[in-house]
């Protein structure tokens, strides 16, 4: 069965300020979409709103996955439905190993009923370890990774690889990659891009959110969308990404008459090293 994430006329505010102003987009399994735009246009807001972050308030519009209303669900239920978000800034959870956490997460998304801590049965340890080891090998992730604390004391590149490893283990229907290339040097982007490339296939729909087209050199999108001031202003194929690379966002901004809006999110992009 083909899975379909449909975002229709979505409006989202953060602390009262409207960030998404009627965004529509749909992602089907097997498709790779790139959503590109300058800082402050609402890219990360979309990612967080899709996953159900409590600070992102949906004012109107709809999001469905296989016709199930996603906006009615908590983040955990969205994950169980098959949504996955690879975070721009993965949160550190000190004292919790990646392996222990992943075993809980995998168990939660596979064993859909009874999601309470006391009642969830975990996937058998032996089976889980075997699977984790296999995936780590495929992605070229070091064995010691599993015993390290979740995103705690990891380098930028390691954090993103940990996100991709989680993506591989959780096997979602639709994956959103939020600025997965930010803060990475070119070698790290290559590693992460190639890892994601291994995971794409007919059963996974991917939405890559990015400022720069660099990651797209490794994961070629079927569709490219440009977001400005909370709306998608242009959609096209690979040629649109190439045009952006050549002309920058200014040309498109001018064309659509959008004033430059400074990013309201206090988190700044981590420094880019090339």
């Amino acid at each position: 069965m083909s899975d379909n994430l449909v975002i229709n006329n979505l409006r989202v505010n953060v602390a009262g300020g409207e960030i998404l102003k009627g965004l529509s987009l749909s992602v089907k399994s097997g498709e790779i979409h790139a959503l590109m735009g300058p800082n402050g246009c609402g890219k990360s807001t979309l990612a967080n709103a899709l996953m159900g972050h409590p600070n992102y308030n949906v004012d109107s519009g709809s999001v469905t996955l296989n016709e199930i209303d996603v906006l009615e669900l908590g983040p955990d239920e969205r994950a169980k439905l098959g949504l996955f978000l690879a975070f721009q800034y993965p949160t550190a959870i000190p004292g919790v190993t990646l392996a222990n956490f992943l075993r809980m997460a995998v168990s939660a998304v596979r064993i859909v009923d009874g999601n309470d801590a006391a009642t969830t049965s975990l996937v058998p340890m032996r089976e889980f370890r075997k699977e984790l080891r296999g995936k780590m090998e495929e992605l070229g992730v070091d064995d010691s990774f599993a015993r390290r604390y979740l995103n705690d004391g990891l380098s930028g590149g390691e954090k993103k690889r940990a996100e991709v490893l989680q993506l591989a283990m959780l096997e979602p229907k639709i994956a959103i990659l939020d600025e997965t290339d930010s803060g990475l040097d070119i070698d790290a982007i290559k590693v992460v891009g190639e890892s994601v490339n291994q995971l794409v296939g007919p059963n996974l729909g991917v939405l890559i959110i990015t400022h720069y087209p660099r990651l797209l050199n490794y994961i070629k999108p079927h569709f490219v969308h440009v977001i400005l001031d909370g709306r998608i202003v242009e959609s096209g194929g690979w040629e649109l990404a190439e045009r952006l690379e050549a002309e920058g966002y200014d040309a498109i901004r001018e064309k659509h008459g959008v004033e430059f809006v400074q990013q309201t999110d206090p988190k700044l992009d981590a420094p880019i090293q090339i």
Partner: protein
Amino acid sequence: MTSGFTRESVAQISEFQNEPPWMLERRIQAFQIFEQLPLPKTNDESWRRTDIRGLNLEQFQLVTSNKSQTNGRYSELFSGVEEQENSGLIVQNDVSVIHSTLSDFLINKGVYFSGFKTALDERPDLLENYLCQTIQSTENKFNAMHNAFLQSGYVLYVPKGVVIDFPLRVIVSLSGESTADFSHTLIIADDESQVTILEEHLSVDQQGQGLHCGGVEIFLGRNAFVNYAQVQNWNKKVWNFSTQRAKLERGANLRWITTSLGSRLSKLDQLVEMNGEGSHADLLGLTATHARQHIDIHTYQKHAVSNSTSNLLYRNVLKDRSRTVWRGMIEVDKGAQKIDSYQQNDNLILSKRARADTIPGLEILADDVRCTHGATAGKIDQEQVFYLMSRGLSYNQAEQTIVNGFFESVLQRIPLEYLRNQLQKSIVGKLQLN
């Protein structure tokens, strides 16, 4: 059973334990102080945050007659507690020892490990020299009460150079209604010896109220190495008061783990004295409270000599309307140079109505020392919750995962797997309660 903490009761206890005269004398001395001292009130600085007006001593009863001792019954009461090879196990219920074993291997090495009453018979020398030497009756009414009425607990003596690989285990339990328990832990680790003790305080019945007014004394000889873990897991109707002391001689090393999970109200007073050069203490604390529990812990790291070190990390997790108090002090005596000493208390507060007080303190009378302290208190980070939930964990699972991680940084400082696993088990059991 008799109620009333009277002079007659003191005499009765002494008689039924068939004690040597010096013990009765000490009891009477302590009793006189007990009679004179009032119960501590909140105008006393160390009791300022712990109100015990709800405590009525008259409700509790002393055990002054011999109860039948049933061997083997402990396994029904405490499933999962097993005798281990080359180790020892003492199980006590309502002040009577119901099971006591020590492997022949350790007996042959001269290790002594026995309930208090038997020890009084067999090793009065140890008791006369060490018992209650560090617990001053004049300090407060509970100390005096303990010294006057103590009649249970255990004595461990590890001779010079003896290394015990597997942890010794002790269970101190209460099951009777309104029993007053004055168990005492006396550990004497002679020079160069090594030992690990896991001691648990449990209620057999979750309803019966009780009073524990305990004492712990640990003496470490030169280069002795002791791991001592106490897990306080009384039911929520038990009042818990405990005065705990350790003295370290030259080169001694103590790892002391205090796990506070149970009781209605708990007041713990812990003092570690680094009395010999090169001595070192690691003090670890794990506290988890819920409902209306109140746990007050006072820690004191005293550096009497140069080149001694100590490192304290206490972490508390609070739910519901519970409250914790941690008050720490590092004291460095005059002339004690080259001291490295730390104290850190972190609180994770899971509900709006819970409250954590954290009061670090330093009293340094030397100039060439490095002492630092830190304290934090905070709510659970909602970004962490969101991250975990976005991977499919429920809110409860996310919260529990974060709490486990919070305690993990304490547990990871315990290199003994068996001990760490046992502590983890107790904590997980507690955190699943709502």
